[in-house]
């Protein structure tokens, strides 16, 4: 295939074929992703698990269009990211990807509403309209009464819910989450994941969550296990079959 668009498959959100990624040269050369092949379906929440350093976050960065691959196919909703220029990838991320980070990365000088509105403002939506929509999403994650609070005035669980609202507000088709519960206690982590599944999952959207918090494994539809740069196992979660 030579074009940048392939025929969209309604059931297939992400297709990775023989993806390789390495860092460094000479003595520092390290191959982080080795021949990764994986399909992620629409309406699916996929957990990417494995020990530290196995390549989970690198794989997440690749399918979010943040890192380039050495070779292989990265197809996200019909867009061949492996063939995109940097600026095209930037546009793609702006329009199609929602991010949830381990440390939330909420801008401390913006209120919860303003933080949620950031992806819309990045996408050139008028400021006031962006704030209105951001408030709607804060209501959705149960934080309507905290709309004007700054991140420092919110608990860890509340901050992560703000981050979830921020990831959803642009209505992206793919949401990538990096260790979303790592900074939360077990109970809060579960509550956040329950709420996340409820508000984020939809038939047109796919979610990829990197985690090694085995307490939340039950929230995934499938679990892909990585080891040493390879996917060694992909299993269905019987709870969600």
């Amino acid at each position, binding site marked *: 295939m030579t074009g940048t668009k392939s025929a969209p498959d309604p059931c297939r959100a992400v297709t990775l074929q023989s993806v390789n990624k390495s860092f460094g040269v000479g003595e520092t050369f390290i191959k982080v992703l080795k021949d990764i092949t994986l399909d992620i379906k629409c309406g699916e929440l996929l957990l990417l698990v494995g020990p530290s350093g196995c390549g989970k976050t690198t794989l997440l960065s690749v399918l979010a269009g943040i890192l380039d691959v050495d070779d292989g196919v990265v197809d996200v909703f019909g867009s061949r990211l492996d063939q995109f220029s940097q600026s095209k990838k930037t546009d793609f991320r702006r329009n199609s990807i929602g991010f949830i980070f381990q440390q939330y*990365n909420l801008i401390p*000088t913006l209120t919860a509403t303003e933080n949620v509105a950031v*992806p819309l403002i*990045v996408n050139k939506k008028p400021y006031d309209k962006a704030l209105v929509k951001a408030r709607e999403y804060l209501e959705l994650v149960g934080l309507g009464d905290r709309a004007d609070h700054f991140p420092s005035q919110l608990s860890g669980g509340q901050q992560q819910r703000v981050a979830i609202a921020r990831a959803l507000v642009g209505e992206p088709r793919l949401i990538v989450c990096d260790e979303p519960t790592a900074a939360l206690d077990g109970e809060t982590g579960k509550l956040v994941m329950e709420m996340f599944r409820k508000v984020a999952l939809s038939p047109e959207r796919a979610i990829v969550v990197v985690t090694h918090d085995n307490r939340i494994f039950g929230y995934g539809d499938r679990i892909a296990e990585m080891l040493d740069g390879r996917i060694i196992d992909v299993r269905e979660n019987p709870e969600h079959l």
Partner: protein
Amino acid sequence: MIRIAMKMLMGDRAKYFTLVGGLSIVVFLFIQQGSVFCGLIGRTAKPVEAIGAPIWVVDKNLQVVDEFKGLLDTDLTRVRSVEGVKWAVPLFIRQVTVRLSNGKFQAVRLVGIDNATMVGRPPKILEGRIEDLNAPDAVIIGKAEMERLGNPKIGDTFEINDRRARVVGIADVPRDFLSNPYVYATFDRAVQYTPRERKLMNYILAAPKDGYTMAQVLANIRKTTDLAAYDEDGMRWLTMNYYMKNTGIPVNIGISLFLVFLVGMAIIGQTFYAFALQNEKYFGALKAMGTSSFTLVKMIVIQSLVVGVIGYGIGVGMGTMIGFLAGPNAKLAFYTPYQLIYISFIVTILICLLSSILSIQRVLRLEPAVVFRG
């Protein structure tokens, strides 16, 4: 994104006030040092303003108004005969010593003005009348530096070279670079106050006839008399250029201004860089969410320009306030020309832009993947 940039900048109060405060002080110092320089250099030409004449005819080797190069009486006649000259009168300026009633001595600038026309008179008489200069031993003194003469009142006397001088008026005269009091007398009396010299007159003041341009008359005088001729502005610049070339004032103040620039760069650059480091993960998050590098650079540049404009406004306000509080004829040599305001604005913007280069480089090199590093 501009609003977000502003909130990121101003939300961190400590850094924001450090940036604005630091820049305000830098601009203040720049304006203050620059105004002192302009004030000092401007004062070197104050004798020209204190006398006030359209045309100054001087010896062609004269470099500065404070030099006393004598002219011949025949030069006055020749200037009067030049085409386009309406009138020409002699002027006498010397540095002489006054003996005060308390026995102390004080150098003064003695100005002898034309007996008949009083051309060269002080710009404004505060007490007394200019005509009173025709009275015996009469002198008019300048108010600025008057305290050096013991703050004399009308009717008080002192001695100039053992000859009696009686104050008949007080004039508003600008302070000059040498800070000596001005004493005005008629030409004939001023000559008597000084030791006998072969050439007494050292300036000829003149004016152009109607229908002649200043440039034409100046050229005619130069061509016909082999003397130098300047309009008032030319005479001022002759003097100011002399002081700029032959004294350490420009170098000393230039070094100060350069140091202000360097310190400004260091303070603002360091704070901006710390600001960028602190916000790196948020810039990374914005980049991951699809903000282009160009937009991030624009955000940083706007942040630095906002700091620059606010800091500049406060700094200029503080700087010019000194001149305002000091007053127009204060001892402090302080003059803020509009050019200095423009130059300081350019310097401020330069400091801000150069300071933000490090932050911009960092943001440009920033990998959005940094956001996934816990």
